Protein backbone atom coordinates (compact mmCIF):
# COMPACT_ATOMS: atom_id res chain seq x y z
CA UNK A 1 0.00 0.00 0.00
CA UNK A 2 2.79 2.34 0.97
CA UNK A 3 4.53 1.83 -2.34
CA UNK A 4 1.26 2.53 -4.15
CA UNK A 5 0.93 5.78 -2.29
CA UNK A 6 4.56 6.69 -3.02
CA UNK A 7 3.99 6.09 -6.68
CA UNK A 8 0.90 8.30 -6.57
CA UNK A 9 2.70 11.13 -4.83
CA UNK A 10 5.63 10.83 -7.17
CA UNK A 11 3.47 11.06 -10.23
CA UNK A 12 1.64 14.02 -8.70
CA UNK A 13 4.93 15.79 -8.09
CA UNK A 14 6.13 15.06 -11.60
CA UNK A 15 2.80 16.25 -12.97
CA UNK A 16 2.95 19.47 -10.98
CA UNK A 17 6.58 20.02 -11.91
CA UNK A 18 5.50 19.67 -15.51
CA UNK A 19 2.82 22.27 -14.91
CA UNK A 20 5.07 24.87 -13.36
CA UNK A 21 7.74 24.28 -15.99
CA UNK A 22 5.44 25.55 -18.66
CA UNK A 23 5.05 28.91 -16.92
CA UNK A 24 8.79 29.42 -16.51
CA UNK A 25 10.53 31.56 -19.07
CA UNK A 26 14.06 30.51 -19.86
CA UNK A 27 17.12 32.51 -20.77
CA UNK A 28 19.84 30.34 -22.31
CA UNK A 29 23.33 31.78 -21.85
CA UNK A 30 26.54 30.20 -23.12
CA UNK A 31 30.12 31.18 -23.81
CA UNK A 32 33.18 32.55 -22.06
CA UNK A 33 34.95 30.33 -19.56
CA UNK A 34 36.10 33.49 -17.77
CA UNK A 35 32.49 34.54 -17.20
CA UNK A 36 30.78 31.21 -16.63
CA UNK A 37 31.15 30.98 -12.83
CA UNK A 38 30.34 34.63 -12.33
CA UNK A 39 27.24 34.66 -14.53
CA UNK A 40 26.10 31.39 -12.97
CA UNK A 41 26.19 32.98 -9.52
CA UNK A 42 24.41 36.07 -10.81
CA UNK A 43 21.77 33.83 -12.39
CA UNK A 44 21.26 31.85 -9.18
CA UNK A 45 20.83 35.01 -7.13
CA UNK A 46 18.45 36.37 -9.75
CA UNK A 47 16.34 33.21 -9.86
CA UNK A 48 15.95 33.29 -6.06
CA UNK A 49 14.03 36.55 -6.32
CA UNK A 50 12.41 35.75 -9.69
CA UNK A 51 11.22 32.15 -9.56
CA UNK A 52 9.24 32.62 -12.78
CA UNK A 53 12.44 32.94 -14.79
CA UNK A 54 14.99 30.22 -15.33
CA UNK A 55 18.48 31.21 -16.44
CA UNK A 56 20.76 28.46 -17.70
CA UNK A 57 24.47 29.26 -17.95
CA UNK A 58 27.12 27.09 -19.57
CA UNK A 59 30.72 27.63 -20.69
CA UNK A 60 32.70 26.43 -23.65
CA UNK A 61 34.54 29.59 -24.66
CA UNK A 62 33.59 32.97 -26.08
CA UNK A 63 33.89 31.68 -29.65
CA UNK A 64 31.48 28.85 -28.88
CA UNK A 65 29.00 31.32 -27.36
CA UNK A 66 29.10 33.69 -30.33
CA UNK A 67 28.85 30.78 -32.79
CA UNK A 68 25.81 29.56 -30.82
CA UNK A 69 24.19 32.98 -31.06
CA UNK A 70 24.88 33.16 -34.80
CA UNK A 71 23.47 29.67 -35.26
CA UNK A 72 20.32 30.70 -33.38
CA UNK A 73 20.68 28.33 -30.46
CA UNK A 74 21.14 30.88 -27.67
CA UNK A 75 19.50 33.94 -26.13
CA UNK A 76 22.69 35.46 -24.80
CA UNK A 77 26.35 34.80 -25.64
CA UNK A 78 28.95 35.48 -22.96
CA UNK A 79 32.17 36.82 -24.37
CA UNK A 80 35.41 38.13 -22.95
CA UNK A 81 36.31 39.66 -26.31
CA UNK A 82 34.58 41.96 -28.75
CA UNK A 83 32.72 40.38 -31.62
CA UNK A 84 34.98 40.42 -34.70
CA UNK A 85 34.25 41.72 -38.18
CA UNK A 86 33.95 38.28 -39.67
CA UNK A 87 31.28 37.35 -37.11
CA UNK A 88 29.44 40.64 -37.72
CA UNK A 89 29.30 39.86 -41.44
CA UNK A 90 27.90 36.40 -40.70
CA UNK A 91 25.37 37.96 -38.32
CA UNK A 92 24.10 40.44 -40.91
CA UNK A 93 23.85 37.64 -43.50
CA UNK A 94 21.61 35.77 -41.08
CA UNK A 95 19.60 38.88 -40.11
CA UNK A 96 20.89 38.90 -36.58
CA UNK A 97 21.34 42.36 -35.07
CA UNK A 98 23.98 42.04 -32.39
CA UNK A 99 23.36 44.03 -29.22
CA UNK A 100 26.10 44.26 -26.62
CA UNK A 101 25.98 44.80 -22.89
CA UNK A 102 29.06 45.20 -20.71
CA UNK A 103 28.25 44.07 -17.17
CA UNK A 104 31.69 43.82 -15.54
CA UNK A 105 35.38 44.29 -16.15
CA UNK A 106 38.21 41.82 -15.83
CA UNK A 107 41.97 42.09 -15.72
CA UNK A 108 44.10 39.35 -17.17
CA UNK A 109 46.76 38.23 -14.69
CA UNK A 110 50.11 36.80 -15.76
CA UNK A 111 51.03 33.98 -13.42
CA UNK A 112 54.24 32.00 -12.95
CA UNK A 113 55.43 29.16 -10.79
CA UNK A 114 56.85 30.63 -7.54
CA UNK A 115 60.31 29.29 -8.42
CA UNK A 116 60.57 31.62 -11.44
CA UNK A 117 63.00 34.33 -10.21
CA UNK A 118 61.21 37.24 -11.92
CA UNK A 119 58.59 39.50 -10.35
CA UNK A 120 57.86 42.01 -13.05
CA UNK A 121 58.29 42.46 -16.78
CA UNK A 122 57.37 44.80 -19.57
CA UNK A 123 54.42 44.18 -21.86
CA UNK A 124 56.92 43.99 -24.69
CA UNK A 125 58.88 41.13 -23.07
CA UNK A 126 55.63 39.36 -22.28
CA UNK A 127 54.75 39.42 -25.97
CA UNK A 128 58.20 38.11 -26.90
CA UNK A 129 57.81 35.24 -24.42
CA UNK A 130 54.45 34.13 -25.78
CA UNK A 131 55.48 34.48 -29.42
CA UNK A 132 58.61 32.41 -28.80
CA UNK A 133 61.25 35.11 -29.29
CA UNK A 134 62.35 34.75 -25.67
CA UNK A 135 62.61 31.05 -24.83
CA UNK A 136 64.75 30.88 -21.71
CA UNK A 137 64.29 32.55 -18.34
CA UNK A 138 68.02 33.36 -18.51
CA UNK A 139 67.33 35.95 -21.20
CA UNK A 140 65.29 37.91 -18.64
CA UNK A 141 67.92 37.61 -15.92
CA UNK A 142 66.58 34.48 -14.24
CA UNK A 143 68.19 31.10 -13.80
CA UNK A 144 68.46 28.94 -16.93
CA UNK A 145 65.25 27.10 -17.78
CA UNK A 146 63.24 26.66 -20.96
CA UNK A 147 60.10 28.74 -20.55
CA UNK A 148 56.99 26.56 -20.53
CA UNK A 149 54.01 28.40 -22.01
CA UNK A 150 50.38 27.81 -21.04
CA UNK A 151 47.51 29.45 -22.88
CA UNK A 152 43.99 28.81 -24.05
CA UNK A 153 42.46 27.29 -27.17
CA UNK A 154 41.31 29.29 -30.18
CA UNK A 155 37.65 29.06 -29.05
CA UNK A 156 38.59 31.28 -26.11
CA UNK A 157 38.00 35.03 -26.01
CA UNK A 158 41.02 35.35 -23.76
CA UNK A 159 43.17 33.61 -26.42
CA UNK A 160 42.09 36.23 -28.96
CA UNK A 161 42.25 39.20 -26.59
CA UNK A 162 45.76 38.36 -25.39
CA UNK A 163 47.01 37.76 -28.92
CA UNK A 164 45.56 41.05 -30.14
CA UNK A 165 46.62 43.15 -27.16
CA UNK A 166 50.01 41.70 -26.25
CA UNK A 167 51.45 39.74 -29.20
CA UNK A 168 50.19 41.29 -32.41
CA UNK A 169 51.22 38.04 -34.10
CA UNK A 170 50.81 34.29 -33.65
CA UNK A 171 51.55 32.39 -30.45
CA UNK A 172 54.66 30.20 -30.34
CA UNK A 173 53.62 26.79 -31.74
CA UNK A 174 54.91 25.02 -28.62
CA UNK A 175 52.35 26.69 -26.34
CA UNK A 176 50.21 24.20 -24.45
CA UNK A 177 46.56 24.89 -25.18
CA UNK A 178 44.52 24.30 -22.06
CA UNK A 179 40.77 23.92 -21.73
CA UNK A 180 40.07 26.74 -19.31
CA UNK A 181 41.41 29.07 -16.64
CA UNK A 182 41.32 26.38 -13.96
CA UNK A 183 43.46 24.03 -16.04
CA UNK A 184 46.06 26.72 -16.66
CA UNK A 185 46.15 27.46 -12.93
CA UNK A 186 46.73 23.78 -12.05
CA UNK A 187 49.35 23.31 -14.77
CA UNK A 188 51.31 26.42 -13.73
CA UNK A 189 51.34 25.24 -10.11
CA UNK A 190 52.92 21.95 -11.18
CA UNK A 191 55.53 23.23 -13.65
CA UNK A 192 58.60 25.11 -12.26
CA UNK A 193 59.24 26.91 -15.56
CA UNK A 194 55.64 27.83 -16.26
CA UNK A 195 54.03 31.08 -17.31
CA UNK A 196 50.35 31.47 -18.19
CA UNK A 197 47.48 33.93 -18.23
CA UNK A 198 44.26 33.69 -16.21
CA UNK A 199 41.35 35.93 -15.41
CA UNK A 200 41.03 37.83 -12.10
CA UNK A 201 38.17 35.64 -10.92
CA UNK A 202 40.42 32.57 -10.88
CA UNK A 203 43.33 34.32 -9.18
CA UNK A 204 41.85 34.53 -5.71
CA UNK A 205 39.89 32.12 -3.54
CA UNK A 206 36.52 32.67 -1.84
CA UNK A 207 38.05 34.90 0.85
CA UNK A 208 39.75 37.11 -1.70
CA UNK A 209 43.25 35.83 -0.90
CA UNK A 210 45.67 34.92 -3.69
CA UNK A 211 45.62 31.18 -4.46
CA UNK A 212 48.59 29.13 -3.27
CA UNK A 213 51.35 27.87 -5.49
CA UNK A 214 51.45 30.69 -8.03
CA UNK A 215 53.17 34.03 -8.40
CA UNK A 216 51.55 37.06 -10.03
CA UNK A 217 53.81 39.00 -12.39
CA UNK A 218 53.62 42.80 -12.27
CA UNK A 219 53.49 44.52 -15.62
CA UNK A 220 54.91 47.76 -16.98
CA UNK A 221 53.75 49.42 -20.15
CA UNK A 222 56.93 51.41 -20.73
CA UNK A 223 60.43 50.87 -19.33
CA UNK A 224 61.05 52.98 -16.25
CA UNK A 225 57.41 53.08 -15.17
CA UNK A 226 56.20 51.38 -12.00
CA UNK A 227 55.13 47.76 -12.44
CA UNK A 228 51.46 47.21 -11.61
CA UNK A 229 49.93 44.08 -10.13
CA UNK A 230 46.43 42.99 -11.22
CA UNK A 231 45.62 42.64 -7.51
CA UNK A 232 45.97 46.41 -7.11
CA UNK A 233 42.33 47.43 -7.59
CA UNK A 234 42.93 51.15 -7.28
CA UNK A 235 45.55 51.05 -10.03
CA UNK A 236 43.24 49.05 -12.30
CA UNK A 237 40.41 51.52 -11.75
CA UNK A 238 42.81 54.33 -12.59
CA UNK A 239 43.51 52.55 -15.87
CA UNK A 240 47.16 51.83 -15.07
CA UNK A 241 47.12 48.03 -15.52
CA UNK A 242 47.50 47.29 -19.23
CA UNK A 243 45.44 44.09 -19.53
CA UNK A 244 42.04 45.34 -18.37
CA UNK A 245 39.09 44.34 -20.52
CA UNK A 246 35.30 44.48 -20.49
CA UNK A 247 33.13 41.38 -20.12
CA UNK A 248 30.30 41.23 -22.64
CA UNK A 249 26.84 39.80 -23.08
CA UNK A 250 25.70 39.62 -26.71
CA UNK A 251 22.08 39.12 -27.68
CA UNK A 252 20.09 39.03 -30.89
CA UNK A 253 18.20 42.22 -31.61
CA UNK A 254 16.81 44.47 -28.94
CA UNK A 255 17.04 42.51 -25.75
CA UNK A 256 13.66 41.13 -24.70
CA UNK A 257 12.12 42.26 -21.43
CA UNK A 258 13.25 39.23 -19.47
CA UNK A 259 16.84 39.55 -20.69
CA UNK A 260 16.73 43.27 -19.95
CA UNK A 261 15.46 42.54 -16.43
CA UNK A 262 18.40 40.20 -15.89
CA UNK A 263 20.81 42.88 -17.15
CA UNK A 264 19.19 45.36 -14.75
CA UNK A 265 19.83 42.95 -11.90
CA UNK A 266 23.49 42.73 -12.91
CA UNK A 267 23.73 46.51 -12.82
CA UNK A 268 22.01 46.75 -9.42
CA UNK A 269 24.01 46.97 -6.16
CA UNK A 270 23.12 43.31 -5.40
CA UNK A 271 24.52 42.22 -8.76
CA UNK A 272 27.62 44.36 -8.49
CA UNK A 273 28.25 42.92 -5.02
CA UNK A 274 28.37 39.40 -6.50
CA UNK A 275 30.71 40.63 -9.23
CA UNK A 276 33.06 42.12 -6.62
CA UNK A 277 32.88 38.97 -4.47
CA UNK A 278 34.04 36.92 -7.43
CA UNK A 279 37.10 39.09 -7.83
CA UNK A 280 35.91 41.04 -10.87
CA UNK A 281 35.47 44.78 -11.30
CA UNK A 282 32.49 46.98 -12.08
CA UNK A 283 32.22 48.04 -15.74
CA UNK A 284 34.26 51.13 -16.58
CA UNK A 285 32.56 54.43 -17.41
CA UNK A 286 33.60 54.03 -21.02
CA UNK A 287 32.19 50.51 -21.02
CA UNK A 288 28.82 51.69 -19.70
CA UNK A 289 28.71 54.46 -22.27
CA UNK A 290 29.48 51.94 -25.03
CA UNK A 291 26.59 49.64 -24.13
CA UNK A 292 23.89 49.43 -26.78
CA UNK A 293 21.46 48.07 -24.19
CA UNK A 294 21.07 50.72 -21.51
Amino acid at each position, binding site marked *: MLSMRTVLYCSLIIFLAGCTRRNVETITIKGSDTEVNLVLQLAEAYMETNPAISVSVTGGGSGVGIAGLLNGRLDVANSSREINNH*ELVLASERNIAIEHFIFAADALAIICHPSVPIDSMSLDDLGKIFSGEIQNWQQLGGAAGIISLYGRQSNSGTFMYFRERVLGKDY*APGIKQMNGNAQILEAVKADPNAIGYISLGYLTDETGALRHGIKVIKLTTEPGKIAISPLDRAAIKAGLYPLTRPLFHFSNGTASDIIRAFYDFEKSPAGQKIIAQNGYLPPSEAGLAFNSVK
Partner: protein
Amino acid sequence: MNQRLFWDKFFEKVFKGTAWVAVLTLVGIFLMLLINSARAFETISFAEFFSGTAWNPAAYGEATYGIGAMLFSTLLVTIGAMLIAVPLGIGAAAFLSEVASPRTRNILKPAIEMLAAVPSVVIGFLGIVLVAPALAKIFDLPHGLNALNGSILLAIMALPTLISVTEDAIHAVPQHYKEASYALGANRWETLLRVTLPSCTSGILVAIMLGLGRALGETMTVLMATGNATAMPNGFFDSVRTITATVAIEMGEVPFGTPHYFSLFACALVLFLITLLVNIAAERVAAGYRRKGQ
Protein backbone atom coordinates in the same frame (compact mmCIF):
# COMPACT_ATOMS: atom_id res chain seq x y z
CA MET B 1 0.88 -21.88 -38.34
CA ASN B 2 0.15 -19.12 -40.78
CA GLN B 3 0.53 -16.57 -38.09
CA ARG B 4 3.85 -18.02 -36.97
CA LEU B 5 5.14 -17.84 -40.50
CA PHE B 6 4.05 -14.23 -40.71
CA TRP B 7 5.96 -13.24 -37.58
CA ASP B 8 8.94 -15.24 -38.79
CA LYS B 9 9.02 -13.30 -42.02
CA PHE B 10 8.27 -10.04 -40.24
CA PHE B 11 11.20 -10.27 -37.86
CA GLU B 12 13.49 -11.49 -40.58
CA LYS B 13 12.70 -8.29 -42.47
CA VAL B 14 13.11 -6.12 -39.36
CA PHE B 15 16.53 -7.47 -38.54
CA LYS B 16 17.64 -7.43 -42.12
CA GLY B 17 16.62 -3.77 -42.17
CA THR B 18 18.58 -3.08 -38.98
CA ALA B 19 21.69 -4.64 -40.47
CA TRP B 20 21.32 -2.51 -43.58
CA VAL B 21 20.83 0.63 -41.51
CA ALA B 22 24.29 0.05 -40.05
CA VAL B 23 25.78 -0.30 -43.50
CA LEU B 24 23.95 2.76 -44.82
CA THR B 25 25.03 4.81 -41.83
CA LEU B 26 28.65 3.93 -42.52
CA VAL B 27 28.30 4.82 -46.19
CA GLY B 28 26.44 8.01 -45.22
CA ILE B 29 29.18 9.06 -42.82
CA PHE B 30 31.79 8.38 -45.46
CA LEU B 31 29.91 10.40 -48.10
CA MET B 32 29.26 13.28 -45.72
CA LEU B 33 32.96 13.44 -44.82
CA LEU B 34 33.95 13.15 -48.46
CA ILE B 35 31.61 15.88 -49.73
CA ASN B 36 32.49 18.33 -46.97
CA SER B 37 36.21 17.56 -47.31
CA ALA B 38 36.03 18.18 -51.03
CA ARG B 39 34.81 21.69 -50.31
CA ALA B 40 37.81 22.24 -48.05
CA PHE B 41 40.10 21.54 -50.99
CA GLU B 42 38.47 24.32 -53.00
CA THR B 43 40.51 26.78 -50.96
CA ILE B 44 43.23 24.62 -49.38
CA SER B 45 45.70 22.86 -51.65
CA PHE B 46 46.35 19.13 -51.23
CA ALA B 47 50.05 19.86 -50.93
CA GLU B 48 49.52 22.29 -48.07
CA PHE B 49 47.12 20.01 -46.24
CA PHE B 50 49.19 16.84 -46.36
CA SER B 51 52.75 18.15 -46.37
CA GLY B 52 52.31 21.24 -44.20
CA THR B 53 53.13 20.87 -40.52
CA ALA B 54 51.61 24.09 -39.19
CA TRP B 55 47.92 23.90 -38.23
CA ASN B 56 46.68 27.38 -37.42
CA PRO B 57 43.28 28.15 -38.96
CA ALA B 58 42.71 31.00 -36.48
CA ALA B 59 46.10 32.55 -37.25
CA TYR B 60 46.80 36.20 -36.64
CA GLY B 61 48.01 36.60 -40.18
CA GLU B 62 47.33 34.02 -42.86
CA ALA B 63 45.61 30.79 -41.82
CA THR B 64 47.63 27.60 -42.35
CA TYR B 65 46.12 24.15 -42.70
CA GLY B 66 48.90 21.55 -42.44
CA ILE B 67 47.92 18.22 -40.95
CA GLY B 68 51.51 16.86 -40.78
CA ALA B 69 52.33 17.56 -37.14
CA MET B 70 48.91 16.33 -35.96
CA LEU B 71 49.11 13.17 -38.03
CA PHE B 72 52.56 12.43 -36.68
CA SER B 73 51.36 13.18 -33.13
CA THR B 74 48.40 10.84 -33.55
CA LEU B 75 50.64 8.03 -34.78
CA LEU B 76 53.22 8.74 -32.06
CA VAL B 77 50.68 8.53 -29.26
CA THR B 78 48.97 5.46 -30.75
CA ILE B 79 52.16 3.52 -31.43
CA GLY B 80 53.41 4.40 -27.95
CA ALA B 81 50.17 3.08 -26.50
CA MET B 82 50.54 -0.17 -28.46
CA LEU B 83 54.17 -0.61 -27.35
CA ILE B 84 52.92 -0.51 -23.77
CA ALA B 85 49.62 -2.34 -24.16
CA VAL B 86 50.60 -5.25 -26.45
CA PRO B 87 53.21 -6.97 -24.25
CA LEU B 88 51.14 -6.31 -21.13
CA GLY B 89 47.93 -7.47 -22.78
CA ILE B 90 49.32 -10.68 -24.23
CA GLY B 91 51.09 -11.44 -20.97
CA ALA B 92 47.95 -10.85 -18.94
CA ALA B 93 45.84 -12.92 -21.34
CA ALA B 94 48.35 -15.81 -21.23
CA PHE B 95 48.39 -15.62 -17.44
CA LEU B 96 44.60 -15.62 -17.24
CA SER B 97 44.06 -18.58 -19.52
CA GLU B 98 47.09 -20.74 -18.80
CA VAL B 99 48.43 -19.99 -15.33
CA ALA B 100 45.78 -18.43 -13.11
CA SER B 101 43.60 -20.62 -10.93
CA PRO B 102 39.89 -20.54 -11.79
CA ARG B 103 39.29 -18.51 -8.62
CA THR B 104 41.81 -15.83 -9.58
CA ARG B 105 40.47 -15.74 -13.12
CA ASN B 106 36.91 -15.28 -11.88
CA ILE B 107 38.00 -12.20 -9.99
CA LEU B 108 40.41 -10.75 -12.55
CA LYS B 109 38.43 -11.18 -15.74
CA PRO B 110 35.34 -9.16 -14.76
CA ALA B 111 37.63 -6.55 -13.17
CA ILE B 112 39.53 -6.11 -16.43
CA GLU B 113 36.33 -5.92 -18.42
CA MET B 114 35.04 -3.32 -15.99
CA LEU B 115 38.04 -1.16 -16.91
CA ALA B 116 36.50 -0.74 -20.35
CA ALA B 117 33.46 0.90 -18.74
CA VAL B 118 35.42 3.73 -17.12
CA PRO B 119 34.51 6.94 -19.00
CA SER B 120 37.36 8.51 -20.94
CA VAL B 121 37.00 11.86 -19.11
CA VAL B 122 37.78 10.06 -15.87
CA ILE B 123 40.90 8.50 -17.36
CA GLY B 124 41.88 11.90 -18.78
CA PHE B 125 41.44 13.44 -15.35
CA LEU B 126 43.67 10.76 -13.82
CA GLY B 127 46.19 11.69 -16.50
CA ILE B 128 46.22 15.30 -15.34
CA VAL B 129 46.33 14.79 -11.60
CA LEU B 130 48.19 11.48 -11.32
CA VAL B 131 50.20 10.41 -14.36
CA ALA B 132 51.46 13.85 -15.44
CA PRO B 133 53.06 14.77 -12.08
CA ALA B 134 54.49 11.25 -11.77
CA LEU B 135 56.06 11.44 -15.25
CA ALA B 136 57.49 14.89 -14.50
CA LYS B 137 59.09 13.51 -11.37
CA ILE B 138 60.42 10.26 -12.83
CA PHE B 139 61.93 11.76 -15.98
CA ASP B 140 62.80 15.13 -14.40
CA LEU B 141 60.63 17.10 -16.82
CA PRO B 142 59.05 20.50 -16.15
CA HIS B 143 55.61 19.02 -16.80
CA GLY B 144 54.05 15.70 -17.74
CA LEU B 145 51.47 16.85 -20.29
CA ASN B 146 53.13 15.04 -23.20
CA ALA B 147 52.77 12.24 -25.73
CA LEU B 148 53.97 9.61 -23.26
CA ASN B 149 51.16 10.53 -20.85
CA GLY B 150 48.65 10.07 -23.68
CA SER B 151 50.22 6.74 -24.63
CA ILE B 152 50.03 5.40 -21.09
CA LEU B 153 46.37 6.38 -20.73
CA LEU B 154 45.43 5.00 -24.14
CA ALA B 155 47.26 1.78 -23.28
CA ILE B 156 45.08 1.47 -20.19
CA MET B 157 41.98 2.04 -22.33
CA ALA B 158 43.04 -0.45 -25.00
CA LEU B 159 43.99 -3.18 -22.51
CA PRO B 160 40.51 -4.61 -21.79
CA THR B 161 39.82 -5.25 -25.48
CA LEU B 162 43.30 -6.60 -26.06
CA ILE B 163 43.19 -8.97 -23.09
CA SER B 164 39.66 -10.22 -23.76
CA VAL B 165 40.20 -10.96 -27.45
CA THR B 166 43.66 -12.48 -26.91
CA GLU B 167 42.35 -14.67 -24.14
CA ASP B 168 39.56 -15.95 -26.37
CA ALA B 169 42.14 -16.72 -29.06
CA ILE B 170 44.34 -18.63 -26.62
CA HIS B 171 41.28 -20.49 -25.37
CA ALA B 172 40.47 -21.57 -28.90
CA VAL B 173 43.80 -23.39 -29.32
CA PRO B 174 42.91 -27.12 -29.33
CA GLN B 175 43.85 -28.93 -26.14
CA HIS B 176 45.68 -31.67 -28.04
CA TYR B 177 48.32 -29.21 -29.29
CA LYS B 178 49.32 -28.60 -25.73
CA GLU B 179 49.06 -32.23 -24.77
CA ALA B 180 51.37 -33.16 -27.63
CA SER B 181 53.84 -30.57 -26.47
CA TYR B 182 53.77 -31.84 -22.88
CA ALA B 183 54.17 -35.42 -24.16
CA LEU B 184 57.37 -34.35 -25.91
CA GLY B 185 58.71 -33.17 -22.57
CA ALA B 186 58.16 -29.41 -22.90
CA ASN B 187 57.31 -27.56 -19.71
CA ARG B 188 54.42 -25.10 -19.36
CA TRP B 189 56.48 -22.03 -20.23
CA GLU B 190 57.94 -23.66 -23.35
CA THR B 191 54.51 -24.88 -24.39
CA LEU B 192 52.99 -21.42 -24.00
CA LEU B 193 55.80 -19.67 -25.85
CA ARG B 194 56.49 -22.19 -28.62
CA VAL B 195 53.14 -23.88 -29.17
CA THR B 196 50.11 -22.05 -27.78
CA LEU B 197 50.95 -18.43 -28.69
CA PRO B 198 52.29 -19.20 -32.20
CA SER B 199 49.18 -21.17 -33.05
CA CYS B 200 46.91 -18.25 -32.26
CA THR B 201 49.00 -15.47 -33.82
CA SER B 202 46.19 -14.31 -36.06
CA GLY B 203 43.82 -14.04 -33.10
CA ILE B 204 46.38 -11.94 -31.27
CA LEU B 205 46.79 -9.77 -34.38
CA VAL B 206 43.05 -9.12 -34.42
CA ALA B 207 43.24 -8.13 -30.74
CA ILE B 208 46.08 -5.73 -31.47
CA MET B 209 44.23 -4.13 -34.39
CA LEU B 210 41.06 -3.68 -32.35
CA GLY B 211 43.10 -2.08 -29.58
CA LEU B 212 44.81 0.11 -32.16
CA GLY B 213 41.46 1.28 -33.53
CA ARG B 214 40.32 2.13 -30.02
CA ALA B 215 43.48 4.14 -29.34
CA LEU B 216 43.39 6.00 -32.68
CA GLY B 217 39.85 7.26 -32.25
CA GLU B 218 40.01 8.23 -28.61
CA THR B 219 39.41 11.95 -28.07
CA MET B 220 38.72 13.12 -24.57
CA THR B 221 41.64 11.45 -22.84
CA VAL B 222 44.32 12.76 -25.20
CA LEU B 223 42.65 16.15 -25.32
CA MET B 224 43.01 16.45 -21.56
CA ALA B 225 46.38 14.84 -21.01
CA THR B 226 48.75 15.70 -23.85
CA GLY B 227 49.01 19.49 -23.57
CA ASN B 228 47.64 20.21 -27.10
CA ALA B 229 50.66 22.02 -28.52
CA THR B 230 50.40 22.24 -32.30
CA ALA B 231 54.19 22.20 -32.83
CA MET B 232 55.82 19.15 -34.44
CA PRO B 233 56.91 16.93 -31.54
CA ASN B 234 60.51 15.72 -31.24
CA GLY B 235 59.66 12.73 -29.11
CA PHE B 236 57.50 11.31 -26.36
CA PHE B 237 58.37 14.07 -23.91
CA ASP B 238 56.88 16.85 -26.06
CA SER B 239 53.31 18.12 -25.85
CA VAL B 240 51.26 16.97 -28.82
CA ARG B 241 47.85 17.61 -30.31
CA THR B 242 46.15 14.72 -32.07
CA ILE B 243 43.67 14.92 -34.96
CA THR B 244 40.78 13.89 -32.73
CA ALA B 245 41.58 16.62 -30.21
CA THR B 246 41.75 19.23 -32.96
CA VAL B 247 38.35 18.32 -34.35
CA ALA B 248 36.85 18.28 -30.86
CA ILE B 249 38.35 21.61 -29.81
CA GLU B 250 37.60 23.53 -32.97
CA MET B 251 34.23 22.16 -34.13
CA GLY B 252 32.30 24.05 -31.44
CA GLU B 253 33.48 27.55 -32.34
CA VAL B 254 33.81 27.40 -36.07
CA PRO B 255 31.14 29.23 -38.13
CA PHE B 256 29.42 26.95 -40.66
CA GLY B 257 30.52 27.03 -44.26
CA THR B 258 34.00 28.49 -43.80
CA PRO B 259 37.24 26.82 -45.04
CA HIS B 260 38.09 26.14 -41.41
CA TYR B 261 34.80 24.25 -40.98
CA PHE B 262 35.40 22.09 -44.05
CA SER B 263 39.03 21.49 -43.15
CA LEU B 264 37.89 19.82 -39.92
CA PHE B 265 35.89 17.37 -42.03
CA ALA B 266 39.04 16.68 -44.03
CA CYS B 267 40.85 15.91 -40.77
CA ALA B 268 38.03 13.59 -39.75
CA LEU B 269 38.17 11.90 -43.16
CA VAL B 270 41.89 11.18 -42.76
CA LEU B 271 41.21 9.67 -39.36
CA PHE B 272 38.26 7.68 -40.71
CA LEU B 273 40.37 6.23 -43.51
CA ILE B 274 43.14 5.21 -41.12
CA THR B 275 40.74 3.45 -38.74
CA LEU B 276 38.92 1.88 -41.70
CA LEU B 277 42.20 0.46 -43.00
CA VAL B 278 43.07 -0.89 -39.57
CA ASN B 279 39.66 -2.51 -39.25
CA ILE B 280 39.75 -4.01 -42.75
CA ALA B 281 43.19 -5.43 -41.98
CA ALA B 282 41.84 -6.90 -38.73
CA GLU B 283 38.88 -8.38 -40.60
CA ARG B 284 41.18 -9.93 -43.21
CA VAL B 285 43.37 -11.50 -40.55
CA ALA B 286 40.32 -12.74 -38.67
CA ALA B 287 38.91 -14.31 -41.83
CA GLY B 288 42.16 -16.18 -42.41
CA TYR B 289 42.08 -17.25 -38.80
CA ARG B 290 38.56 -18.66 -39.12
CA ARG B 291 39.51 -20.62 -42.26
CA LYS B 292 42.51 -22.06 -40.47
CA GLY B 293 40.28 -22.94 -37.51
CA GLN B 294 38.14 -25.11 -39.73
